[in-house]
């Protein structure tokens, strides 16, 4: 009786480990797609490809949602990691929100079609890259939370570093937009997009802070 239970426990554990790894892979992949989406959008000639990429992000978001629900059910049904279960579930939900933010940005670009003059392209691409790097570091932090608790602090520190970089780039770009000769409505429209991209970093930093607390709680 206990042998069977134990065998299913290890099987369930391996399945969940794979699902969580896959979930983090999706976060990372969505970031990489997002990194190419912005330059693709700015290059108006590739609009077909842009919509294709938005669709891809949507698919990945749905997949991540499904994994979150699966993990949630299994953790509760099998009463696994009772001491860290609520922390893990909250963490996955917050990361899922992060994927949602990527997707939201893509939709806003697709629907509102903001008109970024060429002089801001480079800065916008740089900001996007910093944001994606920030989320990449968050993925490392999450992986270390699950496997290598000692590295959580180092990886979380990188998230904070990129978040600060992103803030600097956001402020500089917003300043340049408002210093330009564009009409106020366009300035505000562009600022909205820049701010929305930067917010991904804020969310990533909040999650990294959360993980550091969870890591302290998890210390053996």
């Amino acid at each position, binding site marked *: 009786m206990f042998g069977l239970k134990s065998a299913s426990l290890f099987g369930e554990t391996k399945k969940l480990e794979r699902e969580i790894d896959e979930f983090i892979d999706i976060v990372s992949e969505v970031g990489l797609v997002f990194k190419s989406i912005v330059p693709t959008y700015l290059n108006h000639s590739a609009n077909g490809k842009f919509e294709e990429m938005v669709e891809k992000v949507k698919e990945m978001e749905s997949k991540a949602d499904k994994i979150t629900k699966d993990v949630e059910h299994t953790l509760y049904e099998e009463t696994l990691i009772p001491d860290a279960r609520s922390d893990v579930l909250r963490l996955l939900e917050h990361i899922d929100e992060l994927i949602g933010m990527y997707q939201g940005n893509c939709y806003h670009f697709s629907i509102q079609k903001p008109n970024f003059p060429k002089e801001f392209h480079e800065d916008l691409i740089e900001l996007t890259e910093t944001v994606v790097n920030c989320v990449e570091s968050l993925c490392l932090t999450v992986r270390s939370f699950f496997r290598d608790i000692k590295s959580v602090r180092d990886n979380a520190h990188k998230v904070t570093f990129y978040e600060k970089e992103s803030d600097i780039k956001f402020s500089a770009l917003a300043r340049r937009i408002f210093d330009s000769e564009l009409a106020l409505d366009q300035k505000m429209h562009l600022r909205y997009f820049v701010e929305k991209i930067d917010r991904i970093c804020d969310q990533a930093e909040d999650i990294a802070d959360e993980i550091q607390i969870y890591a302290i709680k998890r210390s*053996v």
Partner: protein
Amino acid sequence: MEITILIFLFGGLFLGWSLGANDAANVFGTAVGTRMVSFTSAAIICSVFVILGAIISGAGTTETLGKLGAINALPGAFAACVAAGISVYLMTKVGLPVSTTQAIVGAIVGWNLYTGSSTNLQVLFTILGTWILCPIIAGIIAMGLFTFTKRVILNRKLHILRLDAYTRTALLLAGAFGAYSLGANNIANVMGVFVPISPFTDVTIGNLFIFTSKEQLFLLGGLAIAVGVFTYSKRVMFTVGNDLLKMTPVAAFIVVISHSIVLFLFASQGISAFLQSINLPPIPLVPVSSSQAVVGGVIGIGLLKGGKEVQWSIAGRISLGWMTLPIIAALISLIVLFILENIFNLTVSF
């Protein structure tokens, strides 16, 4: 078998029930308290292994208890067990994790005092000495194992879920070992006083296996312990698992295994004989307190973490309970013996 004999044996079974409700909770308390093992799994494993430990390895500590005071009349044994059972029950009501070990020793000394029999002071001091040593040894073992396990976990970089699965399995195995050791070490408390006056006779099964009267007594005691586990230990398990120190599942495992090692050391005739064979002092085969072992283990881990998280006021209350329990048991023993002899006209000693 006469009905009166059964009634007298009932005293031992009552004490067995107390042991199941209170001491057995120590074995799985941390595992159930941290919700790593369900109560039903814990209760089944605990019951099976307590019975096995009692029958297979329960003889060593019984001998020692017999030397403390050889109760030679069934009503006397009944009185000692009832006194020990009542005192453990009272302490459990107050919420203090005490052990039947301390209670039965107090009750036997009470019988010695009442009947004018001499108490073997050397044995008494050996037992008292182990009560001081037991939590200290458990604490030291817990500290060593905790440091080692922590290092292994950090270096192996185990996934949180894999660690969870390993910890659950380890808790079940350590719990089984703990229950076996508890049965081996503590069955003497429950049935030890009945051994010299056992109402059973040896039974030969198919000319192959002799089921001795002592083993029959131990099986009966083991069953009483199992009933205690199923009927009353759940609440105590949660108290042990959560109150003294908020523990992680890994720490819970360390506490169970340290407790089990200590109980096993003080019950193993094999280890004691081995030490003697290599000219080392043998480990006294003494029924030690499982509560003391668990509390020692928990405090050991707490100290390793800086000591701030340990609820020292609760630890103080527990220690006070340990000191007063044998005295209370001795006093109740005197009262019960007085009642049996003067109201029921029973012979409590020969």
